[in-house]
C-alpha cells in the first residue's frame, strides 16, 4: 500500500490555553477510517496502520505517518504559514507610505487635517508590539497581532483588555511515548519547501512486524499572550496529548494466483 497516513491534530487553542490542558481541546482526524481507524475527530484516535509481510517474515511495505497541526482559534491551515508575517510587512509598508505622503505634503494637506493627528493615526494602526518572554523575537511574525480575518490589530483596541487575535499556530515539538520507546515508530522532522508547513513537518516510519496497539505522545507548544510590566509578550506553553496506533500485518499474496508467482493468465493463441 503506497498511501501515507495523514493525521490532522486540531487544537482549540483559546480553550487549551485557558484550561491549561489539551484534554478535551484536541481533535484528531486521519485518512485511514476505511481501514479501521476508530475515534475520528475525537481526542482519542486509534489510527489503523496496515502492514504486509512476505512469507519469510520480512516487512513488505513501508507505512509512513505524517502529522499536521491546526488551530481552531487561528486563521486556517489553507493560508501559508508565513501569512502572518506577510500581512505585518504589507501593513508596515502602507504605514511608511502614509508617512511618506505626510512628509511630501509638508504638513499642508487639508484633507488629512492636522499632521499630528495623522501621525497619531499611523502610530495607532501600526499595531501594538509584542515581545517574547526571553526579550527577543522567536518568531518575527509574532511581533504584531493579527485578527481572525487577516487584519493587523491596531494599538488602540489592544488597550481595552485582551485583544481578539489569531493565535500563532501551535507547533508540534516532539513525538515520544510507548510507540517511540518500543521502536515501533521512528519519528523525525523533515524539511519541506512547502510554504504551508513553514519548512518542517513530522513524519515517522512504522515497524509493522510487531502487531498491537501502542500509544504515543505529541508535545505541542502554544503561545499565550500575557501582560507584564514591559508590555505584552508571548509566553510559550508546552502541553502534551496521547493518541494510539493499531498496527497489523497480513501476508502478501500474488494478485494473479492468490499464492506465489505463476505465469501471466494470457489467452491461448
Amino acid at each position: 500500500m503506497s498511501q501515507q497516513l495523514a493525521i490532522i491534530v486540531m487544537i482549540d487553542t483559546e480553550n487549551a490555553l485557558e484550561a491549561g490542558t489539551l484534554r478535551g481541546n484536541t481533535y484528531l482526524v486521519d485518512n485511514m477510517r476505511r481501514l479501521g481507524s476508530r475515534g475520528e475527530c475525537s481526542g482519542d484516535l486509534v489510527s489503523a496502520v496496515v502492514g504486509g509481510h512476505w512469507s519469510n517474515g520480512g516487512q513488505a511495505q513501508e507505512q509512513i505517518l505524517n502529522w499536521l497541526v491546526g488551530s481552531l482559534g487561528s486563521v486556517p491551515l489553507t493560508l501559508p504559514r508565513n501569512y502572518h508575517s506577510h500581512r505585518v510587512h504589507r501593513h508596515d509598508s502602507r504605514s511608511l507610505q502614509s508617512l511618506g505622503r505626510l512628509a511630501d505634503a509638508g504638513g499642508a494637506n487639508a484633507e488629512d487635517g492636522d499632521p499630528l493627528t495623522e501621525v497619531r493615526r499611523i502610530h495607532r494602526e501600526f499595531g501594538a508590539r509584542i515581545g517574547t518572554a526571553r526579550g527577543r523575537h522567536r518568531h518575527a511574525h509574532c511581533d504584531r497581532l493579527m485578527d481572525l480575518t487577516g487584519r493587523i490589530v491596531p494599538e488602540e483596541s489592544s488597550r481595552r483588555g485582551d485583544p481578539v487575535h489569531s493565535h500563532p499556530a501551535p507547533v508540534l515539538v516532539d513525538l515520544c511515548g510507548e510507540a517511540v520507546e518500543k521502536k515501533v515508530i521512528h519519528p523525525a522532522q523533515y524539511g519541506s519547501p512547502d510554504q504551508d508547513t513553514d519548512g518542517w513537518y513530522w513524519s515517522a516510519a512504522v515497524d509493522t512486524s510487531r502487531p498491537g496497539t501502542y500509544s504515543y505522545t505529541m508535545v505541542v507548544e502554544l503561545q499565550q499572550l500575557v501582560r507584564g510590566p514591559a508590555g505584552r509578550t508571548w509566553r510559550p506553553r508546552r502541553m502534551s496529548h496521547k493518541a494510539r496506533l493499531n498496527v497489523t500485518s497480513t501476508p502478501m499474496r500474488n494478485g494473479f494466483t492468490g499464492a506465489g508467482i505463476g505465469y501471466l493468465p494470457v489467452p491461448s493463441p
Partner: protein
Amino acid sequence: MDVSEQDRAPVRRPISITSIVDCVGSLATGTLHENLYLLDSNRAGGSTGQGTPALRTRVSRGDRLLWTVITLECEAFAAIEDIRIDTGVCRPERHTYPDSDVAYWTATVARDDIGLVPYEITFRIGPGEASMTTPVPPALIGGTSPD
C-alpha cells in the same frame, strides 16, 4: 453605545466553525456522509456535537461567526459554495483573506431567542464541478433552547 461603554465592554472572540472535508472519500462515494467533520471554538460556551456533522454551536446576540474549510488531504481543494440559514438569525457572507485567494464566510447573530436553528453548507470539492451539501444539518443554538 457611547465611547466609554465601548472601552469597557470586552470584545468577544468570533466563534470559528471549521469544516474538515475528506476530499477523496467524498469524491469516491459521492457524499459527505462519514467524510465531513465539524468543529467550533465554543465548546466551553456550550456547543455540542464536536467532530460530527451535526455540530450544535451555542451563540448569543452579537456573536460573530466565522466558517472555514480544511481538507484531510493537505494538497486537495475544497471550499464553501453556500450557507443557507434563516436570514432572520444571521446572513452569512463570503469574504477573502486579504492578500490571498482563501475564502471565509462570516455572519453576526441577530437575536438571542433563536432556539435551535438548523442550516446547510454546500461545498465545492476537488478540481472539478463536484458540489455536495452537509448530509445532516448542523445548527446554531441560543437563548432558551432545550438543547
